[in-house]
């Protein structure tokens, strides 16, 4: 706060009184009234203009398009009602495959990610030398793009000369074809997500941990509670809002998973996510329908269902997290 106040009073300006006199409210009262009325709206206007054009309009258009059979290949557009949704939900195994993959990788990445982040944050919250170094080192993966992460890890998980298989070889396990096997590919992709996001989440947890009153821990320690006990009985319940926040962020990000599985295979046709779609996610499927099969109406339905999934999973996470921590 103190640093702010030192920079705050720039209005002390020797020429101020003279300029102010010229602009005194009594000079142009209507102008001042207009300023007070209208300027706040002008200040927030840029966002709403952009949001209307590039946010709201596309969403409404998506809803409309999903009710048609629009395609760049069709000369005419006809209204098909809910046909796209019916087909998507009842007669599209590839979509459900993508849903299954997306949720599988979401759970496989999010659970360890948040647990490891919690443990790291707990460690960072101790009195340690070189605090800033540890924070910086652990947060550093956030400078990489998902494309870079995917490329690096793709090589780590190469079948022939990959580091992961070399490590397995050291302990006497046969090499794994990380792309051919569904669960192996999920694991590989989940580690990419986790590597990039663990440090970020750890910092968020650390910030929340630092705002927990230390008296609570001291009182618990006096009562003989072990560190382990303190962690589960004080830290976790106190972090509840933060955990909900990270869960929702992870849900929004995890269910949109795209770049990592896309770049996991090289060459064209990467949108299909492996030879049998072992790791095709919903977003990859959406672009597949849109740009490879040109079924735009159908793609609109996919996009809407994806959004509903994200919204409902976020809501369920929210309820679960609230429930779990209040039980403790």
């Amino acid at each position, binding site marked *: 706060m103190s640093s702010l106040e030192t920079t705050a009073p720039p209005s002390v300006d020797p020429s101020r009184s003279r300029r102010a006199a010229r602009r005194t409210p009594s000079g142009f009262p209507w102008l001042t009234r207009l300023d007070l009325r209208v300027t706040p709206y002008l200040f927030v206007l840029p966002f709403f203009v952009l949001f209307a054009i590039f946010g709201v*309009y596309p969403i409404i*258009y998506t809803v409309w398009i999903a009710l048609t059979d629009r395609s760049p290949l069709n000369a005419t557009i006809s209204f098909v009602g809910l046909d796209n949704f019916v087909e998507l939900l009842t007669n599209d195994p590839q979509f459900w495959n993508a849903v299954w993959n997306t949720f599988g990788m979401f759970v496989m990445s999010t659970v360890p990610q948040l647990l490891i982040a919690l443990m790291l944050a707990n460690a960072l919250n101790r009195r340690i030398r070189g605090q800033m170094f540890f924070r910086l080192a*652990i*947060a550093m993966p956030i400078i*990489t793009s998902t494309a870079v992460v995917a490329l690096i890890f793709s090589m780590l998980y190469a079948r022939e000369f990959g580091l992961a298989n070399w490590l397995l070889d050291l302990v006497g396990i046969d090499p794994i074809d990380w792309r051919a096997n569904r669960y192996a590919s999920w694991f590989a992709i989940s580690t990419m997500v986790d590597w990039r996001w663990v440090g970020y989440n750890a910092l968020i947890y650390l910030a929340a941990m630092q705002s927990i009153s230390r008296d609570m*821990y001291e009182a618990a320690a006096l009562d003989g509670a072990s560190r382990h006990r303190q962690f589960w009985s004080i830290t976790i319940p106190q972090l509840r809002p933060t955990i909900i926040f990270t869960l929702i962020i992870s849900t929004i990000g995890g269910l949109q998973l795209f770049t990592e599985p896309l770049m996991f295979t090289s060459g064209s046709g990467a949108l299909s996510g492996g030879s049998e779609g072992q790791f095709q996610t919903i977003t990859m499927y959406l672009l597949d329908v849109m740009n490879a099969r040109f079924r735009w109406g159908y793609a609109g339905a996919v996009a809407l269902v994806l959004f509903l999934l994200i919204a409902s999973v976020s809501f369920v996470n929210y309820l679960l997290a609230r429930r779990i921590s209040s039980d403790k």
Partner: protein
Amino acid sequence: MTSTMLRPPVVRPPAAGRPGLRHRAERLWTASPLTWIGLVLGVLLSLFPFYWMIVIASRTNDAANSWPPPFLPGGKLGENIQRVLDNGDANILTGLANSFLVSGTITVATVFFGSLAGFAFAKLRFRGKNALLLIILASMMIPIQLGVLPLYILMAKLEWLNTMPSVTVPFLIGGFGIFMMRQYAEQAVPNELIEAARVDGCSTWRIYWHVVVPALRPAAAVLGLLTFMEQWNQFFWPFVVLADPTNPTVQISLRSLNTAYFADNSQIFAGTLIATLPLFVVFVLFGRQIIGGIMEGAVKS
């Protein structure tokens, strides 16, 4: 440094007077060997891929594909970087220039529009303020996938496909920037100062420029850093609208490298090195502020 920290360091009350008690309280926060092991392991895992990037980027392609894998850097870094720069499919120099242009423009716009709107929401009175703020919050929950198809059609109509406006204009100001500036303006801009300026006859714009902007500077710096990093790393939307490989952003250049040269790992890794270097420099210079920004955002939300 301190002037860019978003929050004053927590001042912990001194421990209780009795030496025994204080000792006990202090001991609560000492690091156990397990803490150290966990931290060191975390740091190693976190830094290893960066090291690995340098190792492979500085090797010949044969060495990169050898068994056991190489663990030490070689001497071919310059050569590999030269090969990436010359690669006619990736156009990585164009990609870098485009990424700087796009991320830079969005960063400046986000800081400017974000501080304007943040100030309005924090300090100005106008009807419908809360409803508008709610819309902004809701907008942050909407994934771009939802509107991707109409957005694509819109870009085609505007004839923006394969050009930089398509990946710049829609992102000039987002909900996050406004929200962050609003939270900061609420505590950083004293109401008395605004009142005083009003009495002096200052217009709202002059108040923004002479009172609010100086006070918001620390938060603006952090918002700028976070925005630049986020935009530099954008992939999904550029992938959709920048299909022409001659005019990519740097991330799309990487994608082209991966598509065109499956086996050429040393070249791909040299490419990832080039694409990461600008943010690495940013992180070295401003890492503390970035971390402060992330932690600050967490407490606020």
